[in-house]
């Protein structure tokens, strides 16, 4: 994260008017679609409660669930690896790929592998990672990073993608302006890779402890091809993705598509359990990634961030995200969930401005399919930033202390009101910086309410109190 953090990054992002239009339009569309699909489900609130309860139980019994998952995957012929951090995980994955002599690997869209910078780590070993998700491919071709959990290239519009493709995978062709033609160009480019590359890497939406089944949910079918065609499959799964039982999927496969793409059911749901002779990959590796997650688990209130199923409903509903887009969050996890997850995964000292990247409007909490109380976690993390990292002598801390002392006494408060009227004093000073660019400073009225109250005759006069 840059030194100046979210406010400065947001300022840069807000200046990109094309991005704002693209993101605003896309989030509007998905938001409306989600609302319509959710409204169809009569027991939606009960489903949310169930989702939250299953996740809370899984997190409360995480060590046990992970050991069960490990045993189940091994029983089904898979291999299980444990990675404490990004470096360990990248070493495990590139070691496996190298062991198979791979110079290229194909990838299913995966946030966990973006989080650990796997593509760069593979490149350092001379292995090229080929993204097969359409949006990830777009970002890769544009040397750009993802700005949305579900729609990584949400900040690009159709025209930008057409021009990009004509400069890269469809050089010299005129693809036209139709989305179908653009998708077809990507399909032709990718199809060859599916058939020739021997190693695939995926993430996981869910890992079921009692059966050892891994689940990937997607829209395009590229994931399905990665998961079935290559000989070797490596899945990197954050440890919080474990579900205790097979039947838990029933809840999440209803919650996830409606919340994310606004579909009743997503087009492709791939489920696999270990390996099967002569069908699909003949070698399966599951890498269980911690990378800060157990630290998050240690925070009693903050740990609910681990319940996230990466649907992105909070991004689409967030008035901050829908204006600044994803880059300003400087993380693979943007939006409200990113504002509570990134600082916890990386350490608050490395992202102290993110918990403040919200007006606390509550729109994220309202749509979260597993009821993560994002506003409360934001407040909790703000408290931790102040207690653990902020100097007591910072201008803000001193102002807050001064204003707090003023409010603690009626006498000091009333003196401050008089000072405010003169144009200075704690109340005005605290509200001044950064405010007046667009919003005129409020004029402090001649008489406070309490002064009026004291000056009132014993019985209210007719017409008193009418608006100015």
């Amino acid at each position, binding site marked *: 994260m840059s030194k100046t953090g*979210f*406010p400065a990054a*947001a*300022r840069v992002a*807000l200046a990109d008017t094309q991005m704002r239009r693209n993101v605003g339009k896309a989030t509007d569309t998905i938001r409306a679609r989600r609302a319509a699909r959710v409204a169809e489900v009569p027991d939606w609130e009960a489903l949310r409660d169930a989702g939250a309860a299953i996740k809370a139980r899984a997190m409360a019994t995480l060590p046990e669930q992970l050991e069960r998952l490990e045993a189940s995957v091994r029983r089904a012929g898979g291999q299980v690896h444990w990675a404490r951090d990004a470096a360990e995980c990248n070493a495990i994955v590139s070691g496996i790929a190298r062991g198979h002599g791979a110079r290229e690997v194909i990838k299913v869209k995966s946030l966990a592998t973006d989080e650990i910078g796997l593509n760069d780590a593979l490149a350092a070993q001379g292995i090229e990672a080929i993204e097969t998700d359409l949006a990830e491919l777009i970002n890769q071709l544009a040397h750009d990073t993802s700005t949305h959990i579900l729609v990584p290239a949400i900040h690009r519009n159709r025209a930008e993608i057409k021009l990009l493709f004509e400069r890269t995978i469809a050089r010299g062709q005129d693809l036209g302006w139709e989305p179908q033609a653009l998708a077809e160009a990507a399909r032709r480019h990718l199809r060859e890779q599916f058939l020739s590359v021997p190693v695939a890497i995926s993430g996981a939406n869910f890992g079921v402890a009692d059966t050892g089944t891994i689940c990937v949910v997607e829209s395009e079918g590229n994931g399905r091809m990665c998961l079935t065609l290559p000989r070797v499959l490596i899945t990197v799964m954050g440890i919080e993705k474990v579900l205790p039982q097979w039947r838990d999927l029933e809840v999440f496969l209803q919650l996830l598509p409606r919340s994310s793409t606004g579909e009743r059911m997503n087009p492709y749901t791939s489920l696999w359990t270990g390996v099967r002779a002569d069908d699909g990959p003949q070698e399966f590796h599951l890498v269980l990634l911690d990378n800060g997650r157990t630290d998050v688990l240690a925070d009693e209130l903050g740990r609910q961030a681990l319940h996230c199923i990466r649907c992105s409903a909070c991004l689409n509903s967030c*008035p*901050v995200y829908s*204006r*600044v887009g994803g880059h300003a969050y400087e993380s693979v996890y943007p939006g409200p969930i990113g504002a509570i997850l990134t600082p916890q995964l990386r350490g608050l000292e490395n992202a102290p*401005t993110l*918990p*403040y990247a*919200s*007006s*606390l*409007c*509550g*729109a994220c*909490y309202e749509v979260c399919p597993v009821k993560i109380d994002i506003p409360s976690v934001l*407040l909790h993390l*703000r*408290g931790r930033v*102040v*207690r653990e990292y*902020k100097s007591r002598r910072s201008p*803000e*801390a001193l102002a807050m*202390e001064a*204003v*707090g002392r003023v*409010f*603690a*006494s*009626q006498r000091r*408060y009333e003196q401050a*009101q008089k000072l405010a009227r003169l144009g200075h004093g704690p*109340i005005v000073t605290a*509200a001044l910086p*950064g*405010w007046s*660019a*667009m*919003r*005129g*400073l*409020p004029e*402090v*009225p001649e*008489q*406070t*309410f*309490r002064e*009026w*109250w*004291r000056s009132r005759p014993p019985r*209210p006069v007719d017409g*008193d*109190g*009418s*608006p100015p």
Partner: protein
Amino acid sequence: MRVALFITCFNDTLFPQTGRAVVTLLERLGCEVDFPQAQTCCGQMHVNTGYQERGLALARRFERVFADAEVVVSPSASCVAYLRANGAGLDGRLAELTEFLVDGLRVEDVGATFPHRVTLHPTCHSVRMMRIGDRPQRLLERVRGIDLVELEDAAVCCGFGGTFSVKNADTSMAMLSDKLSHVLNSGAEVCTAADNSCLLHIGGALRHQRSGVRVMHLAEILAST
């Protein structure tokens, strides 16, 4: 009914006309209004900025000041929601103004006349923290002469968020910009809300643009005759 008014520091200092309107309105509806003068601030700004110790001490102070009140009414959805969320809801005796009118006094027609075109900004904390529903609309619909017009994307945040508007001034302004265009597109003369904090924000910008649209707290419309 005896009602203690929690005016909030913000209204006391910057929007005394809202306080006067609340008193007028409640007295017109037969309440006896009391104003405990030891009241200051509920601590929301401190808590929302991360200074929880200071903020919660102010919430406890609020509880002490209003300990003996039968009912406490406040014209700020945001402060009421915050107090309730922090265990200072006075065991159900603390009500936001429109809640008190509709649920406590069971009135929707408060006898007001306000012959102007008005649009309502529902405020995030009213809608999502307080679950205030359509109480403000119901009260406004009964006002004589009013022309209530719809606000596009009404429930979307105006970008105030307390210290958010200062810490993330650019983002806040981008949000405000959209809210302003919706307010202007609505054709309203007056933008109203059950909370002056949003109105400080929206109103400040409307004035800054010399827009010719003004903001008024809901209580001021309901007090008008």
